[in-house]
């Protein structure tokens, strides 16, 4: 049912587009974002869009000129209208002309492009710096000067992706925790990755930087309009590559200051005194969230995994065995033949989060160990 409705809707939208194109002509259609680069909100993105328009129109003019000649020839020089071939096959003058003129046109294109490149590469004198780390399949944002950070994961429910629910407005372009930055501020972005190559891309900023494990690259942007800007990972990074959006909220400087204070308070509170002793049900509730955000991409919400690539945790020997082994697995990841597997180390999670997720997996689905793992145990295991 749902699927039929969805296809009817998609079909009608298609029809609308066709009609819009037919009635309004390409001029009107070009204004819609589905046809062209997204509306820019940084000086660089604006320069890029101008560059693109310039080169686009130059190409259109050349194209029309060149193929005007071809179609003239096709209509006038055809055998069926009795045209007899003229047997020339060389002309140094025109050959020189059509080598030199394109060269000059290219010079005109290279000049503004060079200017933009120099501006893009100038990451000096930033007002603030954030570090972005790509993981399979989420982003980590680290506010280096403020001393806190968080993960940012797709928040579109699986039911929408699997067509069991209607899709929301920002389907696949929404996250739990967006990156928040102040308006009119030069933000330097340090980009790296923890596993494979990703690419951090926000079209409205004109920023795309590959995130390369083991290396830190930098780029920058200065957004001049408050709003929410959405992009995606742009480098194939495995199974969920299509499902790791980038969302940046640009807020006023005041709102940013408030947000910072709140975040710091939250970080302090969630700094989760590792000595605290938790109730099992609280840990399980928290663990479910940690699991959904970090582990379900591979092991699945059902705990069944995707064997053989990603093993089931439901019924797993490790999860139902001694807890020390499982804690070690999660803390250190799994190596096979001396090489890291997709099961990487989860050390970056807090003691409480690891305790929660371990407790959760040991008491979910078919697993009924009844055991609780406290943050203090993780703290010990880390040493």
């Amino acid at each position, binding site marked *: 049912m749902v699927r039929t409705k969805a296809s009817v809707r*998609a079909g009608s939208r*298609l029809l609308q*587009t066709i009609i819009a194109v037919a009635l309004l002509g390409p001029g009107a259609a070009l204004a819609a*974002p589905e*046809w062209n680069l997204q509306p820019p909100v940084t000086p660089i993105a604006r320069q*890029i869009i101008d560059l*693109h328009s310039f080169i*686009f129109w130059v190409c259109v003019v050349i*194209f029309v000129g*060149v193929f005007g000649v071809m179609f003239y*020839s*096709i209509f006038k*020089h*055809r055998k*069926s209208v009795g045209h*007899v*071939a*003229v047997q020339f*096959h060389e*002309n140094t003058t*025109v*050959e020189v002309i059509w*080598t030199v003129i*394109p060269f000059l046109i*290219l010079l005109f*294109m290279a000049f503004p492009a*060079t200017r933009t*490149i*120099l501006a893009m*590469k100038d990451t000096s004198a930033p007002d603030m710096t954030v570090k972005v780390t790509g993981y399979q399949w989420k982003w980590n944002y680290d506010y280096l000067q403020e001393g806190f950070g968080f993960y940012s994961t797709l928040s579109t429910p699986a039911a929408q*992706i*699997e*067509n069991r629910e209607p*899709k929301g407005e920002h389907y*696949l*372009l929404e996250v739990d925790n967006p990156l928040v930055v102040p308006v009119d501020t030069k933000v330097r972005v340090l980009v790296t990755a923890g*596993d*494979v*190559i990703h*690419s951090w891309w926000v079209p409205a900023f*004109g920023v795309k930087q*590959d995130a*390369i*494990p083991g290396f830190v690259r930098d780029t920058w942007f200065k957004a001049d309009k408050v709003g929410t800007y*959405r*992009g*995606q*990972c*742009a*480098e*194939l*990074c*495995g*199974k969920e*590559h*299509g*499902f790791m959006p980038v969302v940046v909220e640009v807020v006023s400087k005041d709102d940013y200051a408030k947000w910072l204070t709140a975040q710091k308070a939250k970080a302090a509170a969630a700094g989760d005194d590792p000595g605290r002793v938790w109730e099992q049900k609280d840990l399980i509730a928290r663990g479910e969230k940690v699991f959904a955000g970090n582990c379900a991409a591979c092991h699945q919400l059902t705990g069944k995994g995707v064997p*053989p690539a990603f093993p089931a945790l439901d019924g797993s020997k490790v999860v139902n065995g001694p807890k020390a082994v499982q804690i070690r697995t999660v803390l250190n990841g799994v190596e096979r033949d001396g*090489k890291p597997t*997709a099961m990487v180390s989860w050390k970056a999670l807090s003691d409480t989060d690891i305790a929660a997720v371990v407790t959760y997996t040991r008491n979910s689905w078919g697993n009924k160990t009844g055991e609780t793992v406290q943050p203090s145990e993780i703290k010990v295991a880390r040493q």
Partner: protein
Amino acid sequence: MSSIPHDHAAAHGEGPDGHAHHPTGIMRWITTTNHKDIGTMYLWFSFTMFIVGGCMALTIRAELFQPGLQVVNPEFFNSMTTLHGLIMVFGALMPGAVGFANWMIPMQIGAPDMAFARMNNWSFWLLPPAAILLVGSLFVPGGAAAAGWTMYPPLTIQAGMGMDFTIFAVHIMGASSIMGSINIITTILNLRAPGMTLMKMPLFCWTWLITAYLLIAVMPVLAGAVTMLLTDRHFGTTFFNAAGGGDPVLFQHVFWFFGHPEVYIIILPAFGIVSEIIPTFSRKPLFGYASMVYAVAAIAILSFIVWAHHMFTTGLPTAGILFYMYATMLIAIPTGVKVFNWLATMWKGSLTFEAPMLFAIGFLFLFTLGGFTGLVCAIQPIDVQIQDTYYVVAHFHYVMVAGTLFAFFGGTYYWLPKWCGRMYDAKLAEAHFWLSFVFFNVTFFPMHFLGLAGMPRRVPDYAQQFADWNMVASIGSFGFGFTQLLFFYIVVKAIRSGAKAPAKPWEGATTLEWTVPSPAPYHTFETPPFVK
């Protein structure tokens, strides 16, 4: 080379066309050293892989018909994009070009066969095992390689044994290409008929001569890159692992040092085919023959110094970006020269529009469009927005499908009468062109919009604002796919029941292959012709 006349003496014997001593049935094909037989096998192999890769493309387009996951899961989707790319590049386009070379180069230069006839057999028969490895990898535990045809580590280090299958397939296909290239170079340099100087050679031979040098230069580099992947995966090296002192980006440099010349390896023979067709149906010699040769050479040389334009978002230093951008833009000049020369060849000709000419004009029109989008991609700031998006997908399908594949269709319609001695149904062939032309554009033109609007490539699902154009593209792709069944029908019908073809079915044709009867006898030019 002394073995060539010898071979033929043995094979020739009684019958006027020398069939007498050849094995028949399947053994004829397995043991053949005849350039025409081998050319035929290359072409059928290419077509088979084209259909296999095409089915994968249609799987991709079916999944992308609507937002949401409907047809396949994301991992299988990634395997489809990966195998589609590898199969089309290494299985369909490259062997297709070698098929044309095998058939036409000896006949165009007045040589009796390829220089190394047995190696020719071997270089073909390496391909089916490679294809089996690639397609078979779908059925191994963990599935086929799913990291894209570009095989970037560290993602490829994580992959299962399907990746090892892919690596070995690439090794084998590389060996086959290198042998084929040595053969082509030797044939062209040593076996030309008396009077056939290099600068009198048909342009198709020139483009292949230069392509063969490119292949010899870069296939070993690709083999090196995938071998490093293999040792990183299994033998503890860390070429591409920063933790061990390596660098993941190193792979990209090595890969694209192969990869950019590779795109010219794919397009240059197509240039050659089009340069044969356009003069024939314009009834005029090719305009600017010498500048065409120089342009091909210039493109080939430039192709070695532009590779990092595929890596504009990896964080190259400023000087690197500027260098690769300028160098890439320069390629527009010799490419432009070629387009202008083709147009000047048509200018004041006496044009007719048989199927080969239609495909050549379609090539000219759409390839040029792909050239323009290539120029747009070369401008690094713009590339930052469109790299790894559907814009790039549109760009390279304009040059590879509307470019090379259209040239192959044109070449097939041009030479099929020579190959099988029969004409095809001209009306159907024209219909094949128009359907291909329309559906090609319905499929790939909207991808420019998708890319500009921000849709990344290699994703199994997408946001709502991309829904309309994806639906259009998917519809077009099925149209394009089914149209190719018509091509199959046209060719088979011609072979089985086409009208008898004259030695020279095209009024304007001038090259040597048209001086022999149709179908070309099993052995041609055993006594070399004399070229004035």
